[in-house]
């Protein structure tokens, strides 16, 4: 209260003064019930409330398709193999240990005594059922992930043996993704073609309570979870609020404890708000341009290179992400174990070289491109910055924006419309998967269906034949250099995790995958 007001109140007779003060207090009460329903309950209960940015597509790991599902799935499912949050190096999950007795065999040793939420045991049989369902069932969306698995055998109640068609050391990390999430076979009625997309039953830290579309998904503590101290709260409520500023306001007003994946720009704002903390770090999520190398001028690698070299990625990050994040010189962030310095140099900003290449390709007078993108404000902003940068080498164009379902269909599907699509790559736990999906000749994400550079398949194969991380890094580095040389995609910026948390939240950390896990979070 400022000085004048105080004086004015002091000047009132005692009775009036009390009335005024209580009136002010009343006003304050009204003002503070900003987060009333949520906060009122929060005082008594130990329930974690999280703002999620999208409705899950499915709560059955085998049938979903959206990268944003994981954050929900992790609450209810454990994966066979886990990863280190900072580097994504594999670590034990439901499988206490794993090994490749020979390159085409993977043996998983399961933990004893793990049960599903419905009480049935998560044993070797259950794992076999899940893996077979994931790789063969019609409804499975992830058959591709387990394409190298030939058979799954139950060696003993706690041992599962996977026989592979080719050496595949990417498998452990693949099993840290959807493919490794175990669903209760009982809940599926032992029928691989049914699903639990709306009533997930897994072994995860919270058992499922309810899901109201576009509103919230509720879980309650699974007491029999195999890890001690997990979960850290009695319940979890995931509130779906697609709009970022809405999400931030939700955490600001205390309606939720955590709002993850805010836009980088909001970091400055979060820092200004008292009692809010920030959890931040790099992710695998990369804003990039998909190139249809089978169309017009883009068939010329020089043009593609020029488009990439003319992007001042640091300025791009500064403009679109308020400097929170990093330039993406390849399809992986710096922090990733397979990051390749040599590949990164290929895309370093060099506008003179870009101009030279354009001239050489015969586009010294400029080039008009058919650009596609998505209509959300973030995308639009990135498009504007990109167009401004490209104007330096005479590249013009206007973005035709449409929702994801429409523009990805048009660009990647049979229509093959548009030269470039500004989109993103959400990353995969194992980088070899990323490369295979982005650049294989028949991959969906290769819109021109152009053949990858020679030696690409070889190098990928080599990365999968060894379990040694350094050897893998070398092979994947080669792949990365090849694709950047050919510039079949144009990476722009690495998305940074920006999560706003209230002061009550403890033990919440970002991970490199960019898909938060709440297992260990406690409220204090």
């Amino acid at each position, binding site marked *: 209260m400022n000085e004048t007001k105080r004086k004015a109140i002091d000047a009132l007779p005692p009775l009036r003064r009390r009335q005024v003060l209580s009136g002010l207090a009343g006003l304050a009460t009204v003002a503070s019930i900003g987060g009333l329903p949520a906060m009122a309950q929060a005082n008594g209960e130990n329930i974690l409330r999280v703002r999620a940015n999208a409705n899950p597509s499915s709560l059955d790991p085998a049938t979903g398709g959206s990268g944003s599902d994981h954050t929900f799935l992790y609450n209810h499912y454990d994966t066979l193999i886990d990863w280190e949050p900072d580097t994504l190096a594999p670590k034990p999950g439901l499988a206490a240990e794993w090994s490749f007795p020979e390159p085409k065999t993977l043996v998983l040793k399961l933990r004893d005594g793990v049960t599903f939420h419905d009480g049935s045991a998560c044993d070797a049989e259950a794992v076999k059922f899940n893996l077979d369902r994931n790789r063969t069932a019609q409804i499975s969306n992830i058959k591709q992930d387990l394409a190298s698995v030939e058979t799954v055998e139950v060696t003993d109640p706690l041992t599962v043996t996977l026989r592979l068609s080719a050496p595949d050391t990417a498998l452990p990390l693949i099993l840290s993704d959807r493919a490794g999430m175990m669903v209760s076979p009982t809940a599926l009625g032992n029928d691989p073609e049914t699903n639990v997309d709306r009533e997930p039953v897994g072994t995860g830290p919270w058992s499922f309570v309810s899901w109201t579309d576009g509103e919230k998904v509720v879980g309650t503590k699974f007491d029999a979870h195999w890890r001690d101290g997990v979960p850290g709260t009695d319940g979890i409520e995931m509130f779906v609020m697609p709009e970022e*500023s809405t999400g931030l*306001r939700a955490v600001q007003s205390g309606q939720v404890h955590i709002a993850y994946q805010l836009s980088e*720009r909001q970091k400055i*704002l979060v820092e200004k708000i008292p009692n809010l903390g920030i959890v931040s770090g790099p992710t695998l999520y990369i804003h990039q341009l998909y190139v249809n190398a089978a169309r017009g001028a883009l068939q010329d690698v020089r043009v593609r290179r020029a488009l990439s070299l003319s992007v001042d990625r640091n300025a791009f990050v500064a*403009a679109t992400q308020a400097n929170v994040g990093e330039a993406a010189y390849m399809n992986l962030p710096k922090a990733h174990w397979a990051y390749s310095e040599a590949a990164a140099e290929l895309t370093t900003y060099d506008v003179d070289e870009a101009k030279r290449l354009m001239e050489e390709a015969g586009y010294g007078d400029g080039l008009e491109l058919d650009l596609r993108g998505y*209509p*959300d404000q973030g995308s639009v902003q990135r498009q504007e910055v990109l167009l401004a940068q490209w104007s330096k080498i005479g590249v013009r164009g206007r973005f035709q924006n449409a929702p994801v379902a429409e523009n990805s269909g048009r660009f990647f599907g049979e229509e093959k419309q548009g030269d470039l699509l500004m989109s993103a790559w959400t990353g995969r736990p194992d980088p070899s998967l990323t490369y295979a999906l982005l650049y294989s000749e028949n991959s969906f994400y290769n819109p021109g269906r152009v053949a990858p550079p020679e030696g690409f398949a070889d190098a990928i194969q080599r990365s999968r034949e060894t379990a040694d991380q350094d050897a893998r890094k070398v092979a994947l580095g080669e792949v990365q250099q090849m694709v950047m040389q050919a510039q079949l995609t144009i990476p722009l910026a690495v998305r940074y995790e920006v999560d706003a948390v209230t002061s009550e939240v403890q033990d919440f950390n970002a991970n490199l995958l960019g898909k938060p896990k709440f297992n260990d979070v406690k409220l204090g």
Partner: protein
Amino acid sequence: MNDMSPPADASATAPTTPPRVDRPGLPLRILHWMIDDPIAAIALLVLLVIFICALFADQIAPYDPTLQDYAAMLNPPSAMHLLGTDDLGRDVFSRLIHGASASVYAAVLAVTVATVLGVPVGLIAGYTGGWIDQIISRLLDTFLSFPAIVLAIAVTGVLGIGLTNAMLSVGIVFAPQLARLVRARALVLKQELYVEASQCFGASSGWILMRHVLPNAIQPVLVQMTLLMAVGLLAEASLSFLGLGMQPPDPSWGSMIARAYVYAQIAPAQMYAPGIAILITALAFNTVGESLREALDPTSRT
């Protein structure tokens, strides 16, 4: 017996009541109207300014509306940037002026589409009557109860997202309103005696529609068109807000608001300028429309 009656001609040429005031020239008439309805005159002036902005944006705007300056993002108003800068360091004032052309274009397009579609349909329904009218009326009912946003998304989906296509869909949404209005007018007008007289002369339906029904039905349409201009302006803003309207990097008022909303917490002032621009323009269109209604409607003059 007829001692009272001078020749017939005398009466026929006698002055009429009220006496015919010589029709003044156009400038004088405009002056009269402006004195009569100064608020509408101001509104018309505002529209004129906005149209000039739209036409000569390049000359008026102090900066290139797409010129980015990452060193000056979200700056408050200053002498250099009258309305500050936006999230990419672009001059808001320049974008506002350039946005006028997009917004005016959008409104004009939507209203034109609505008129081209709605007026003939309404004329035919109202004049023909019978089962054709029944069918058209049911169709109009359908369109009017249809969530417009679905139509907008669908049209932009089929034709591609962009201001033109978005406003095309808005035009389609508006058309039934005009059609209904014209239909109602046509229903009345076809009963007019001069239409019956024309029928007696052997006029065809086409002649009657074009010479008698349309010219007399057009007045409320004109009024409604100006009022729809305002609605079209708001629709442009809404669609741009949903990302279906103006595409980057060119500015429109709606897309400026949409972008500004992202920074509501950091720079709330960003929202004001384009919103007020829409408000003033819509207000001006409405005012002119109301004034037209008043001026054209003989019953409102008592």
